[in-house]
């Protein structure tokens, strides 16, 4: 056994050089193989275009009141018909997409910004910190989601901004729980201890080593929560606590259409379809992401199994 200056690992010398493959590309590659996810992505792309350029695309102004042509069925002029004030339902549905997406992204953003750090700290430090933070989350979690949102809005007052805050608070415990659960297993990993043995501080370990390793479930939960948040906003707007008229919102339009459902079902059907497709799209993407992020987890577990 003479000390070699050159590597003599024959096994490794034989392995072909591995191409540098980014994990993002890998995940996206798996995602686009899922047809439903692609459909979801397409719907979301359309929605985002509508949200950004709604006014330009819509054939009518948002509040073009035309009482003479009220409650008209779908026609060449008014594809989705008109409402009780003669406003074009198609234009309103398109423009309302912005509100829904905005609420979805901002509310989930709030939930992420609050829930993930809470979960990281609770899971990492454990003990008393964990108990206090997670019991607080449990209290929030124990309320039915919409009921809690209504309670928060009762305090803050109705309106779009407060609806987003309320939905954000309601979904915070979900992110805190998911993050904490993953942190509990990741913090036991040898590479976390190894990072500590190389002088990394708690903050650095959390940011550089733990957070990236718990992202997968958080990403999946984000896409699913976007769907829930949009539903919640629709529910709140339906109850008159979210978007205030004359701003259009799908939930609000459903509520208005309810009164005319016998005579003008299109008033409720089309905003309802808007909600349906959006929620479905986020769910498809979420499911696809879960599958795309999962095989990786499996292969890590398998490779670990071989060595122990």
């Amino acid at each position: 056994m003479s000390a070699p200056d050159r590597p003599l690992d024959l096994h490794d010398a034989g392995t072909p050089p591995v191409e540098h493959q980014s994990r993002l590309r890998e995940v996206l590659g798996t995602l686009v193989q899922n047809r439903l996810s692609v459909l979801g992505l397409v719907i979301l792309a359309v929605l985002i275009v509508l949200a950004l350029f709604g006014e330009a695309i819509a054939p009518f102004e948002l509040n073009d009141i035309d009482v003479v042509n009220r409650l008209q069925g779908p026609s060449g002029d008014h594809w989705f018909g008109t409402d009780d004030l003669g406003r074009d339902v198609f234009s309103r549905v398109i423009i309302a997409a912005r509100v829904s997406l905005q609420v979805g992204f901002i509310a989930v953003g709030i939930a992420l910004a609050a829930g993930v750090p809470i979960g990281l700290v609770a899971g990492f430090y454990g003990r008393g910190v964990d108990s206090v933070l997670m019991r607080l989350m449990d209290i929030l979690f124990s309320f039915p989601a919409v009921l809690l949102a209504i309670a928060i809005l009762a305090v803050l007052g109705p309106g779009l901004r407060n609806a987003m805050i309320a939905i954000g608070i309601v979904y915070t415990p979900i992110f805190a729980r998911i993050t904490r659960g993953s942190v509990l297993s990741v913090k036991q990993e040898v590479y976390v201890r190894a990072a500590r043995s190389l002088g990394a501080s708690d903050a650095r370990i959390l940011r550089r080593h733990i957070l990236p390793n718990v992202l997968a479930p958080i990403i999946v939960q984000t896409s699913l929560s976007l769907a829930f948040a949009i539903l919640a906003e629709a529910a709140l707007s339906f109850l008159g606590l979210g978007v205030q008229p004359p701003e259009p919102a799908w939930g609000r339009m459903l509520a208005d259409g309810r009164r005319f459902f016998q005579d003008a079902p299109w008033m409720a059907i089309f905003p309802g379809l808007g909600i349906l497709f959006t929620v479905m799209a986020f769910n498809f993407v979420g499911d696809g992401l879960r599958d795309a992020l999962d095989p990786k987890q499996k292969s890590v577990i398998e490779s670990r199994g071989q060595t122990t």
Partner: protein
Amino acid sequence: MTGAATSGEAVLSVRDLTVRFGTKRGPARVVNGISYDLAAGETLAIVGESGSGKSVSVLSLMKLIPEPPGKIDGEVIFRGRDLVAASEADLQAVRGNHMAMIFQDPMTSLNPVMTIGHQLTEPMEHHLDLSTTDARTRAVDLLELVGIPSAARRLDDYPHQFSGGMRQRVVIAMGLACDPEVLIADEATTALDVTTQAQIVELVQRLQEQLGMAVIWITHDLGVVAGIADRVLVMYAGRIVEEGLVDDLYADPRHPYTLGLLASLPKPGADRPETLFSIPGLPPDPIVLPPGCAFWDRCTYRLDAACRSDVPELRTVAPGHKVATHYDITAESP
């Protein structure tokens, strides 16, 4: 093995190190007052079976065990200060910088979502205040040093793109990133196949000669110890039961536990025995350690009541050779 061994003064002095863990059944006394010195450039092997406290004893040198439930007492004098009493910030400045550690399983000791380049440069940017470019240059040098082919190209690869042996080389490179005075290898070859083991052992030996660091090598593999160590500590139930230069210890083991460990090794060249020798019984439960010698009920020489009631002190039996027994025992003893 290394010429410079045991020449200089101690870089690391451990005095009466004790580690306990609080459990529901009471405190588990995992390390029970161990003391030793590590000389500059020396390779010290700590051997013992699973649960003998060898890993915990080195983890606690840099206070890497969680407190609570752990509790570390005693002194670890390194660079003139006691690490047991040091603040977390001071410890962070020592960890990875002056004292580094290699863990057992290279499959799990690298972060799967960070490129190895990132993982290598992180401690350098942190401790040595290097720029990203300088750190990357040094990372390539280190990877070449540990024998990774086309190192520059592999810097942006992820750990799963490396084999086990290559990963352990990367882990070693991370340990060496800041030129530590002390490198601790905690069962660094245990998870690897035999061929790769030999390569890693040789690699660490070569690096030690090049870089002049002291190495603490934790293992239960006495074959590895014979090849690499200058001095050996044998641990049992959280205590050092025998300490000596590797040749003395192998030629003239004085503790019945060491005798048993050596007897359980297959001897190359000898006729294949029917069964390999094994020490009967199990190590004691660290929560209910016996009052006397912890090896008492497994000992084939147990002589009298003193073994049951008094913990034998570590005493010198030959120059540089210490043993914790009440009686002088040699391989020729009955």
